């Protein structure tokens, strides 16, 4: 393997010693030791909330550590801001891209490291040349004059890498870089990472995906609950070992679910076209049927029309053409309220913005979808007793960890917030359950709980439409799978015929063999 040649004996290029980082009320990192050696790919593995990103933000100068020290090439440093880290040759590609969508690629790359002329004018031509040069050197081709917001996520990721390389970064921190990529793109990305290492870069690779760790790592450190709980050798470790280390107990990978028992068609979309707020057609000629008692999973890279499809089904957006039926009702033009009242539950993708009202109590959040119905409302008046009764019961049933039902939802952890939403949406008779990205950013315990609930809803006879960017989630939960690519449903599989490879290929290229979008 390249890079291993430096060996563990040489001084690390980047070292964290006893790093502690606390936020008010939370210890995000506690006494973490971590070392990156020249020319290696060091994987930092841990489940969501384990403290990986916090640690990296400390190393990149965005967070000031509460305790401990950072050592770069044997020298102890203090970073006042990320500018200091950049000056030390550290670059970071953030999990959520830090790009400015309305700027061009060149402007994004130049920002913070601008070249100016004698008249203090911006010299973007110089930056353009650099971008082309870096692109050729590392195989990261982009058009410097393209507007970033119009580029695909894969290309945006390339720009993030170029930003770091333009600043002569020798140490690259990649935070969950594969989360937004298709399986095919992931392989290409690994090639880029290996090229970088060949050219002398050292890389910290953060992920919670075991398969990737074993594919790419030279060394592995596992974080759990803000502490470094161990390290592993990728040549000998198994996925099961790593999983147990990551979660701290035995993990069952597969969701246990009995075979589906599909009934009548519940949701039927016929030739549905949806346009987004800019007037761009984001869903094209969607034909889709979901039966009672089955889970239909929609796979696809984010931004391929999933959001608009879900919005059309739940009444949040009226389709430009086509028809949507729920059982015997035509809901093409129905309002969200009408759709919900017909027995459609919706767990929205962005739970903070769309799912809960943060400053409101758990009780108020539990009745957001039924406050206007008896017994919670009578002749326009709110009735508290039934509201509190319901909330108390749901908190119990759905295992929401909270001191009480009057607590503001915003104070709960992400997992518990999602349980509040799941409780609200699943605790009434449903014809159809629509769940979008139900477990994003959650810990393994909450993920398992929510997966079980989804399967339970199916077994109780609801039709389930599951949208997820996590292919693993789709594959383990769905009874049938469709792939959304550029707004079209390009393939439909039975669970048996859906392999990672086949689904992944459709996610990346659609039906045709057209070029991967650049």
């Amino acid at each position: 393997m390249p890079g291993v040649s430096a060996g563990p004996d040489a001084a690390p290029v980047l070292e964290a010693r006893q790093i502690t980082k606390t936020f008010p009320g939370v210890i995000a990192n506690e006494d973490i030791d971590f070392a990156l050696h020249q020319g290696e790919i060091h994987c930092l593995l841990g489940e969501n909330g384990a403290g990986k990103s916090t640690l990296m933000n400390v190393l990149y100068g965005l967070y000031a550590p509460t305790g401990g020290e950072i050592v770069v090439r044997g020298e102890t440093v203090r970073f006042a801001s990320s500018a200091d880290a950049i000056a030390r040759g550290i670059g970071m590609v953030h999990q959520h891209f830090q790009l400015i969508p309305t700027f061009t690629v060149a402007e994004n790359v130049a920002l913070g490291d601008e070249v100016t002329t004698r008249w203090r004018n911006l010299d973007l031509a110089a930056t353009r040349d650099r971008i082309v040069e870096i692109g050729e050197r590392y195989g990261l081709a982009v058009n410097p004059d393209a507007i970033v917001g119009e580029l695909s996520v894969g290309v945006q990721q390339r720009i993030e890498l170029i930003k770091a390389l333009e600043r002569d970064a020798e140490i690259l921190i990649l935070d969950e870089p594969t989360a937004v990529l298709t399986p095919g793109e992931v392989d290409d990305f690994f090639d880029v990472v290996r090229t970088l290492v060949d050219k002398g870069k050292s890389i910290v690779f953060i992920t919670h995906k075991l398969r990737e760790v074993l594919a790419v790592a030279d060394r592995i450190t596992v974080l759990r609950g803000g502490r470094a709980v161990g390290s592993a050798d990728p040549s000998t470790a198994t996925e099961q070992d790593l999983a147990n280390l990551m979660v701290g107990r035995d993990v069952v990978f597969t969701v246990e679910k009995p075979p589906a028992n599909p009934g009548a068609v519940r949701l039927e979309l016929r030739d549905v076209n949806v346009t987004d707020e800019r007037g761009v057609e984001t869903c094209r000629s969607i034909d889709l049927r979901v039966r009672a008692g089955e889970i239909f999973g929609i796979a696809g890279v984010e931004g391929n029309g999933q959001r608009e499809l879900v919005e059309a089904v739940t009444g949040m957006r009226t389709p430009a053409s086509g028809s949507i039926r729920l059982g015997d009702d035509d809901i093409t033009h129905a309002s969200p309220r009408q759709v919900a009242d017909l027995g459609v539950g919706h767990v929205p993708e962005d739970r903070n913005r769309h799912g809960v009202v943060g400053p409101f109590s758990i009780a108020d959040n539990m009745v957001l979808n039924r406050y206007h119905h008896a017994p919670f409302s009578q002749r326009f008046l709110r009735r508290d007793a039934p509201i509190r009764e319901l909330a108390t019961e749901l908190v119990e049933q759905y295992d929401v960890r909270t001191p009480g039902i009057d607590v503001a939802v915003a104070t709960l952890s992400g997992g518990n917030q999602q349980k509040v939403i799941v409780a609200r949406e699943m605790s009434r008779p449903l014809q159809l359950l629509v769940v979008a990205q139900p477990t994003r950013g959650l810990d393994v315990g909450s993920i398992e709980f929510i997966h079980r609930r989804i399967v339970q809803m199916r077994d109780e006879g609801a039709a389930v439409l599951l949208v997820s960017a996590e292919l693993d989630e789709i594959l383990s939960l769905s009874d049938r799978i469709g792939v959304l690519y550029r707004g079209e449903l390009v393939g439909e599989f039975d669970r048996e015929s859906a392999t990672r490879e086949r689904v992944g290929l459709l996610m990346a290229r659609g039906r045709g063999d057209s070029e991967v979008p650049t």
Partner: protein
Amino acid sequence: MTGGRERWAAELRHSIQIQSILVPLLAIVCAFAVGAVAIVAIGDNPIEAYWALLRGMFGSGDRIAASLGRSTPFIGASLAVAFAFRAGLFNIGAEGQLLVGATAAAWVGTWASVRDLPGIVAIVLLLAAGATAGFAYGAVPGLLKAKTGAHEVIVTIMLNAIALLYVRWLVNSQDPILLRDTASSVPRTAPIEDAARLPTFVDSQPPLHLGFLVMVALATLVWFILQRTSFGFEVRTVGTNPEAARYAGMDVGRTIFLAMAISGLLAGVAGAGEISGTSGFLSPGVFINIGFDSIAIALLARANPFAIVPASILWGAMLSGAGLMQQEVGLSIDVVRIVQALVLLFVAADVIVRTIFRIRKAADDPLATSTLASGWGGP
């Protein structure tokens, strides 16, 4: 239903938490302290000035009545601002809505048919006219916000200017004569019928009239709507997280429209009550600055309908008491204005007060979770 009643009591207690009183009080203290610096700067003695001001506010029965009388329109106007706040809307248009309501009342009050109505009917008719006009005038920014995303701050400010110009025309116009009282030398409307006048309790300057109790009742009604009705829950949800409200199936546009229109209605009633209770006629400039005052009061009361009443009384009393300060110390009424402006600064930027006195932030403060600025540039 004892459980329900207990909840009510708990909610009431919750509404008047120590926190929510302490911070505004300290803000007032800070404002007076900084105001004292300004008084010293122009060469006067702040203690003397404030002592005169205090006696002017509450020094005698008559002065107390005058203070309450002065505060009456502020209650309605700041309720309007507060109600809109709770829906995540910033109604700067209370001044225009008040003026429109008052104009409608001044017009209806001169109808010959009003003369023979029993007092209670005539008064209700007058207030209803103010309410309707205010509702309609508040509906405009509500509708524009809901339909086009036009920010209500700009629209309501423009509507203030427009209302002032057109009401001035209605009252001033000689040819044709519209609302002008031809018997009067200054431009004003004809006096309304006696039947439509709100009864006066104390004939102070300004008088304390039944309108004060009407406004207190209005405050209670607004609290009830916000806390105890399904519509109020919608208003609060839209005001806190409009996106989540939309996902929960609430009709956000309708809620915004109604909240703004109801806000206008509250201001319209205040305007009508003022015509009916105080002067009996309308002169166009009478409500100038009330927009300023109502926003400050609503912020001071943290948009809590019950706190609006004492905050308005304080405000009205300060303006009413400034006269004595002017007489005794020779300071202009503008001193009170500057103190009031500072009160506004310290209550809006309550972080400053909290920092000075080391008080932690309340989690459920409706203003702390405000989403006003996030609506900038459309929905």
